[in-house]
């Protein structure tokens, strides 16, 4: 019901939205919750476990009852608190956890079965048979118990992450926060003021008292206006600070466009990381419900929420409102309602010395013990001090058990709050988050005057730490009422009295946990699931542990709180991972030949972050194998071109590079002649092979190292480590030049003929023998030429500055095609190197050493190198090692697969008989058979032996003969060509 003349909603802007398909009238400035209450929609949700009817309970982010789903389809947003969702024209909302409808929910039968569904029910009931858990129990329970769900589709909405920095972060824009920000802002400090509401002011917007001679609402608005006029102050509304982290860093979730009909390209949410030199927590406090029988019916709310709906939204949540309280503060609700002309059925105050009412009756010393009304509150039963019971007809109950300071953020770095007897709640301890102060209600100071005073003091202290002078500030005149309450957690009596409304945890559940010896508060939490719902116990923690304290005969301070962890409110993964969805997971790296390769129809494969062509299909080719076979034949018989730019290239300069390389490589590089290239093997400190590649000596003090594509980064890091930590004495400079050069392999018997058509100076086997390197002019461009070969053919790698890469690749390919060859991709590259027995990281996979791969002779005896000593440990050499071998199929089955296991011929293919495994396989068109590389126990001594390869996963068994891993041209006649 709307109350004319009240509230901050814009009555001149009416609009409609839908809830469960029904049209609801609202005004701009409403939340879904306020609009539903105005429309007298009481039943909004079904509870988590028992499917109990629930309504709106609060007015803030802690809302325990009204969780809804917003939107439809792929981007639907579940578990949105109706109290936080601002309305806009066309907004679609739905209730959750009900079937077939909110009004008739089949699973509300759970409520009748409640005697069986107590705490620990699942643990006790679904013990066995074990297999049933995953297949039957869990899916059924998950369907029955729950909240909203995602669509399961790719999220089409955009989210954002951002970073912000400031001198002074103010968390919360109630009276304390506004005053802190104002004090710091006027002093010229860089201030960020965050508040999770759509308008700043905190409780001031929900109350009727004056501040500084104006209404609280007006004072807040004018203070915000002054702050907005300051260049040094950044106001962030709809932004919840979610966590306090190391070194003054805070997480914050901004709801950027949840409230807009037309998002206009804005992200839905933005997850901020705010680094602040100093901060103040002014997060306010949350009113706590009282546990009594059936205290969860739609229409039962907190007393302050009723005031907020009345004063901020101009909505009376009921026609006859009852107040249930143990403190003076809640009487404001009755006064405000009467003032606004709403009937107050009565105030039931548990204190015999409660204040008198003015226009309403106060039942002193009484307590509410039950309620009626299935889908909406109809009446409450209360008990006089003498035990007599009576009933009040009422459609809204405003309850208050007192206030709990929002201490959460002060505990995010392992701080614990302390019990304050005066307010019967926990308050923060100073200094638990370095650089953070607390002010106002979150600090246990509940009067407006107190909050304003503390806001000023916090700003002054923080700025004084930073050396910023603040002017003396006057505290605006405001109410300074004492906070008087008598503790009340749960009303005695039969039936279920709710503590945790979101997870359906009752007083009985907590008592049962204690009785079953889950007496620690952390155990109670896990046994009952109290505090585990989206509200994370904001409404229930203190009351639940008070009940636990009572049940275990301990005091509340001894019982303590559970651990407060970030985030303070639910944060969507989409916001935290903004920008990383789908292809945004990692940067994409493209070679200069990418465009030409795609134009040629090559399917691109991801190699780390790089994209490389798999093969280049020719007209008429139907399978990748046909293309691959042709490309291999091209290289063996004519000439092929392949982009090898992705290999790491490291430029090393300085007088000591040779010595440095001798230390990081197993073999010698200081003796390498200028203009020559050498293959090198690099070990990790533990003696395992790290990487391999060729290194060219371009000048006396200048080497260029190549690494494998995968290890480009790790090798660079390794070299930096070795230089900075192990050999800082050496004068060496190194820098990556991977991206500087576009480099192409030109391989095959016609490779020199092709290159001689492009080089300024023709080369021959004398001027450019195998392993020669140097600078060269290619079509007039200064480049580099290396005579090295991965394919085993007469081959070169030609490098030009990357800007020419696209052009040179196209030219090389067209020349190659005119000579009976062409481009080749990763598949052919792999087959070529397997035929030649060259290793890749499939073989040097992090568990093999130089001995295993047959390179023991490459570990120079004349010098030390990284990993040498460790590689000589017992067990790392000898006939027990699995050694690199070649494999060829010899039986009926001709297929080899990578990752298969090797067994002796005729042996049972089980784990204990395992002799090794395959690492690389491919079909060799040159030898017209599958070829494999693998590791076999004592393999080098077993050439010629027949063994079986068993691929248990794919169900393949192939008889093989063990052979040398070099299948073609073991003498190297081709490469020297």
């Amino acid at each position, binding site marked *: 019901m709307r109350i004319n003349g009240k509230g901050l909603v814009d009555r001149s802007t009416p609009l409609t939205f839908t809830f469960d398909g029904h049209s609801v009238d609202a005004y701009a400035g409403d939340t879904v919750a306020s609009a539903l209450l105005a429309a007298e929609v009481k039943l909004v949700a079904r509870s988590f476990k028992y499917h109990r009817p629930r309504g709106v309970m609060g007015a803030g982010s802690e809302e325990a009852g009204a969780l809804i789903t917003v939107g439809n389809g792929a981007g639907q947003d579940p578990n949105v608190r109706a109290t936080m969702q601002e309305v806009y024209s066309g907004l679609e909302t739905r209730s959750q956890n009900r079937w077939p409808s909110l009004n008739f929910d089949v699973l509300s039968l759970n409520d009748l079965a409640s005697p069986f569904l107590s705490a620990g029910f699942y643990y006790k009931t679904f013990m066995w048979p074990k297999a049933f858990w995953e297949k039957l129990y869990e899916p059924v329970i998950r369907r029955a118990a729950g909240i909203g769900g995602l669509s399961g589709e790719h999220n089409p909405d955009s989210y954002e992450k951002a970073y912000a920095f400031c001198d002074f972060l103010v968390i919360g824009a109630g009276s304390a926060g506004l005053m802190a920000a104002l004090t710091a802002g006027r002093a010229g400090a860089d201030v960020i003021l965050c508040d999770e509401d759509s308008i700043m002011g905190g409780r001031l917007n929900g109350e009727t008292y004056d501040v500084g001679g104006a209404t609280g609402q007006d004072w807040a608005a004018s203070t915000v206006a002054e702050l907005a006029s300051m260049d040094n102050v950044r106001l962030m509304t709809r932004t919840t600070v979610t966590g306090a982290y190391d070194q003054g860093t805070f997480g914050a979730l901004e709801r950027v466009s949840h409230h807009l009909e037309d998002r206009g390209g804005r992200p839905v949410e933005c997850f901020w990381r705010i680094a602040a030199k100093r901060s103040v927590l002014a997060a306010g406090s949350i009113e706590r419900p009282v546990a009594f029988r059936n205290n969860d019916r739609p229409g039962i709310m907190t007393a302050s929420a009723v005031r907020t709906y009345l004063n901020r939204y101009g909505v009376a949540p009921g026609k006859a409102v009852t107040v249930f309280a143990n403190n003076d503060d809640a009487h404001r609700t009755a006064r405000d309602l009467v003032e606004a002309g709403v009937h107050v059925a009565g105030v039931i105050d548990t204190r015999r010395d409660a204040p008198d009412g003015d226009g309403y009756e106060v039942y002193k010393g009484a307590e509410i013990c039950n309620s009626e009304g299935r889908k909406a509150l109809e009446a409450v039963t209360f008990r006089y001090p003498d035990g007599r019971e009576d009933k009040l007809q009422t459609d809204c109950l405003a309850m208050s058990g007192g206030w709990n300071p929002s201490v959460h953020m002060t505990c995010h770095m392992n701080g614990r709050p302390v019990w304050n007897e005066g307010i019967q709640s926990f308050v923060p301890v100073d200094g638990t988050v370095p650089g953070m102060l607390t002010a106002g209600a979150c600090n246990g100071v509940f009067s407006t005057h107190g909050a304003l005073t503390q806001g000023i003091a916090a700003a002054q202290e923080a700025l004084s730490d930073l050396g910023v002078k603040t002017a003396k500030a006057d505290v605006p005149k405001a109410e300074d009422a004492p906070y008087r309450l008598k503790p009340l957690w749960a009303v005695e009596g039969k039936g279920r009295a709710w503590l945790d409304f979101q997870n359906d945890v009752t007083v009985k559940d907590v008592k049962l946990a204690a009785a079953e010896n889950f007496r620690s508060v952390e155990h109670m939490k896990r046994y009952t699931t109290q505090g585990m719902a989206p509200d994370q116990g904001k409404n229930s923690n203190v009351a639940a542990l008070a009940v636990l304290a009572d049940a275990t005969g301990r005091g509340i301070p001894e019982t303590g709180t559970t651990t407060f962890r970030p985030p303070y409110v639910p944060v969507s993964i989409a916001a935290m991972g903004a920008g990383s969805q789908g292809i945004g997971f990692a940067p994409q790296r493209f070679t200069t030949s990418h465009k030409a390769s795609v134009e040629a129809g090559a399917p691109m494969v991801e190699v780390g972050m790089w994209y490389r062509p798999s093969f280049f299909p020719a007209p008429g080719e139907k399978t990748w194998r046909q293309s691959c076979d042709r490309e291999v034949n091209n290289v063996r018989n004519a000439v092929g071109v392949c982009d090898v730019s992705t290999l790491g290239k490291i430029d090393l300069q300085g007088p000591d590079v040779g010595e440095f390389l001798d230390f990081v490589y197993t073999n010698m590089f200081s003796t390498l002649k200028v203009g020559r290239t050498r293959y090198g093997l690099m070990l990790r400190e533990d003696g395992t092979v790290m990487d391999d590649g060729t290194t060219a000596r371009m000048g006396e003090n200048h080497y260029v190292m190549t690494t494998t594509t995968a290890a480009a980064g790790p090798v660079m890091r390794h070299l930096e480590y070795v230089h900075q930590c192990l050999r800082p004495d050496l004068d060496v400079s190194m820098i990556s030049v991977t991206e*500087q050069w576009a480099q192409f392999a030109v391989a095959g018997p016609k490779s020199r003929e092709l290159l001689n058509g492009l080089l300024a100076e023709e080369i021959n086997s004398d001027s450019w023998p195998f392993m020669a390197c140097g600078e060269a002019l290619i*079509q007039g461009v200064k480049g580099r030429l290396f005579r090295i070969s991965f394919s085993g053919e007469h081959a070169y790698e030609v490098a030009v500055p990357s800007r020419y890469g696209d052009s040179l690749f196209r030219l090389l390919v067209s020349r190659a095609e005119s000579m009976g060859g062409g481009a080749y991709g990763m598949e052919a590259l792999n087959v070529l190197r397997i035929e030649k027995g060259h290793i890749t990281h499939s073989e040097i996979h992090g568990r093999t050493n130089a001995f295993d791969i047959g390179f023991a002779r490459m570990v120079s005896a004349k010098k030390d190198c990284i990993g040498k000593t460790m590689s000589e440990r017992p067990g790392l050499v000898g006939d027990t090692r699995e050694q690199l071998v070649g494999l060829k199929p010899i039986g009926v089955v001709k297929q080899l697969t990578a990752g298969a296991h090797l067994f002796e011929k005729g042996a049972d293919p089980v784990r204990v008989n395992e002799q090794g495994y395959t690492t690389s396989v491919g079909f060799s068109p040159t030898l017209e058979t599958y070829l494999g590389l693998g590791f076999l126990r004592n393999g080098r001594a077993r050439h010629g032996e027949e063994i079986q390869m068993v691929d248990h996963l794919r169900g393949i068994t192939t008889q093989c003969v063990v052979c040398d891993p070099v299948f073609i041209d073991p003498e190297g006649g081709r490469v020297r060509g």
Partner: protein
Amino acid sequence: MVDLMAKSPCDGLLPVEHGGVSLSEIDMTVLTSVSPYKGQDKALSAALKEAHGMAFPGINRATGKEGARAIWFGQGQAMLIGPDPASSLCVHAAVTDQSDAWVLVRLEGGRAEDVLARLVPVDLRQAAFKRGHTARTQLQHMMISVTRTGDSSFLIMAFRSMAKTLVHDLETAMRGVAARHAG
């Protein structure tokens, strides 16, 4: 003889403009990494000054000006941007051509800081990051170099191969910022 055609890293991707912030490529300039040999820091700085008019930059600083700039690029490393490096530098330092290794873009406009705040985790506000300040940091998932070149302009350098992702990430942030301030 067929001439090899040069292509810039952002070929076909730039320039773009959103909400008063523009992103453009600084095309085909000369980049040279310069890294002093042992004990040669001062001599190198003098040689740089003599040949190109700027000192070797301190940590997180850039020296020189538009057209001839040296920016700190990591421990014991500077990137000389613009001039062809004088041979005198090679006496004191490892000198390496990097002209084709990096993509250089300029982000310019009133809300350039807001755009970078979506991607770069360091404080780039004018007060903390003045003209002549530079940082090696990250932009979304990429390692980059960022330098303030004016009140509302930044030079950003990333690996050449990542040019497309760089432009994509920056443009996404530019669109987001523009949308927030539209209407």
